[in-house]
């Protein structure tokens, strides 16, 4: 589904990603771990097409299609979803209105009519139940005054609504208490299928107890320095990142 080859990216002439190779197939869950400043969030942003990052070498393709010239919204239409580490506030725009706009814009890009209000309501009801979201929450301004946990839950709610092919969860576990974590993880697990893929970016092993990865990659200095199965996450938890840093320095 997603194929990243020798990806180099920089911001303001500072190279952050230095040759990433990664392949994610449909039905798989990949975890990307690594210390602060290793380039995890940059990788997520580059896949989503954020313009402030310049891709200097290499490529990102989705289902065999090179994404180089695709705008962020076009990537979204093709099924890329990013759950933000720091979701932004949009005052005066309700969660419902935002979702309605997002869904209809994607439909428009595919040449479809707006989703009928009846179907929209049904979808909202179904997905808000999945994530145990209070309906009142949906009429509030997007992310405005939301607690950390509410913001993250809202991100996953949006993911549920948009049903992406590739979901990237950037530090979705940060700011979540254990109950919220369980709800969010449960939501992600229910949305998982053989046709879509998930990339989980996290610092800690904790989230991976709930969303069990097929592969774990460790990012350091803009490169994937180690890949393995889910046991790699446990090893990292135990040993920290330092041993890896030493290993790669050699």
């Amino acid at each position, binding site marked *: 589904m997603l194929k990243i080859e020798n990806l180099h990216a920089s911001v303001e002439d500072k190279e952050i990603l230095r040759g990433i190779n990664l392949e994610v197939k449909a039905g798989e869950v990949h975890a990307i771990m690594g210390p602060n400043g290793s380039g995890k969030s940059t990788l997520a942003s580059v896949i989503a097409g954020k313009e402030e990052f310049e891709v200097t070498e290499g490529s990102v393709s989705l289902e065999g299609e090179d994404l180089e010239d695709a*705008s962020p919204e076009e990537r979204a239409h093709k099924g890329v979803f990013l759950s*933000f580490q720091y979701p932004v506030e*949009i005052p005066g725009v309700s969660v419902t209105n935002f979702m309605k706009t997002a869904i209809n814009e994607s439909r428009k890009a595919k040449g479809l009519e707006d989703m009928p209000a009846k179907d929209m309501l049904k979808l909202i009801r179904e997905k808000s139940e999945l994530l145990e979201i209070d309906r009142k929450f949906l009429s509030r301004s997007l992310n405005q005054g939301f607690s950390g946990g509410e913001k993250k839950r809202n991100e996953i709610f949006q993911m549920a609504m948009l049903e992406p092919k590739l979901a990237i969860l950037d530090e979705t576990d940060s700011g979540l208490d254990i109950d919220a974590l369980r709800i969010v993880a449960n939501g992600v697990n229910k949305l998982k299928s053989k046709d879509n893929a998930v990339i989980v970016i996290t610092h800690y092993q904790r989230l991976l107890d709930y969303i069990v990865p097929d592969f774990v990659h460790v990012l350091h200095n803009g490169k994937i320095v180690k890949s393995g199965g889910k046991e790699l996450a446990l090893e990292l938890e135990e040993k920290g990142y330092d041993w890896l840093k030493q290993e790669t320095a050699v």
Partner: protein
Amino acid sequence: MAYTEEELKKELETKEYEYGFYTDIESETFPIGLSEEIVIAISKKKEEPEWMTLWRLEAFKHWKEMVEPEWANVHYEKPDFQAISYYSAPKKANPNKSLDDVDPELLEMYKKLGISVDEQKKLQNVAVDIVMDSVSVATTFKKTLAEKGIIFCSISEAIKEHPELVKKYLGSVVPQKDNFYAALNSAVFSDGSFCYIPKGVRCPMELSTYFRINQAGTGQFERTLVIADEGSYVSYLEGCTAPSRDENQLHAAVVELIALDDAEIKYSTVQNWFPGNKEGKGGVYNFVTKRGLCEKNAKISWTQVETGSAVTWKYPSCILKGDNSIGEFYSIAVTNNYQQADTGTKMVHLGKNTRSTIISKGISAGKSQNSYRGLVQVNSRAENARNFSQCDSLLMGNECGAHTFPYIEVKNKGAQIEHEATTSKIGEDQIFYCNQRGIDTEKAIALIVNGFSKEVLNKLPMEFAVEAQKLLEISLEGSVG
């Protein structure tokens, strides 16, 4: 004033004047320039009674002694008032005709502007009094309104048919010498709307007027007078569009609202006059005086969505004269490219327990300047007066400006005044967030702007709100590269 029609015509013909048509409709335009003769000629042309002519002349006398105000935060080349033609009427128009008799070319033009009268008549519960280049050409729903005793007609017609009302109220809220532009308007106003709601009557539909400036080089001087008698209610809509023009056009309208005891007037405006092109060339100068008077327990709400004009100078105000009266001002002002707006309100608290609310949303983009200027004045006998003001500014890009000039004058210790102000900027992060959800940048801006403006948009009547929302989107198109 011993002019005869013939003499006048002859004299006018000998003067040079600029002439330019936008449509093929034959217009009748006065020579450029302003003098006592022109004022008399306008009055004569409109077959006005002598008292009206004298009223205009008095205004003209004041105007000659006044100077153009310069305190507003706007910079422009002052219009040459002697280079403007002060009267232009579509020749074929006849206010007494039915819609079917109206020049089909005119109707075609309205359709292009999205102002289909037929459609309005059928689909919407809106009575429309259309003003084009000064003279009212079609009035609908008149009969329905007449059954309730409501008078809704052109101001010219009202001067002839209802002189007692016009005499009593014209200039009672905005006197002839109120300010430079109001004086000019009082001298030369060509037409406008008049509305009277009798005691205890609730106007069953939204009354609506569309103004537009059609002919190049003509100033537009509309005069609107709305009187809500005791215990009555009316919602009045005013919308404007204008085709592109190269030279600056002057618009100096006056709107007077009178809400008698227990009456309520809602006055909504969507203003979309030509703002000038991307280089800041052309555009309408919009210098408007709007003011309402509230008697006991009365209420006046101004709601405006201002997206057009090169320069806007406009402060819809409320004189809260009667005890327990309420004044409200809800405004969205959008400026883009080289537009300049200096707009706000004045809430003058005279009566006891008077309350006012001001919600102002300014959106600046491009190289534009957007100023809020508001006065809250509480006089000494206005016991227990309350005001709440909120001024929010939204900036797009790095080259525009947002300014807030709140003036508060309180002479009564029992007053309670609240003022809140915020300034924010549409961030790249907000745009990227929307993009990531599949919403392109243009739509994202519209979404953010609509969210920002929601409190005010919600105050507009339904069909107007939809139009206004579209207008906001159009006005900001291309403002973020």
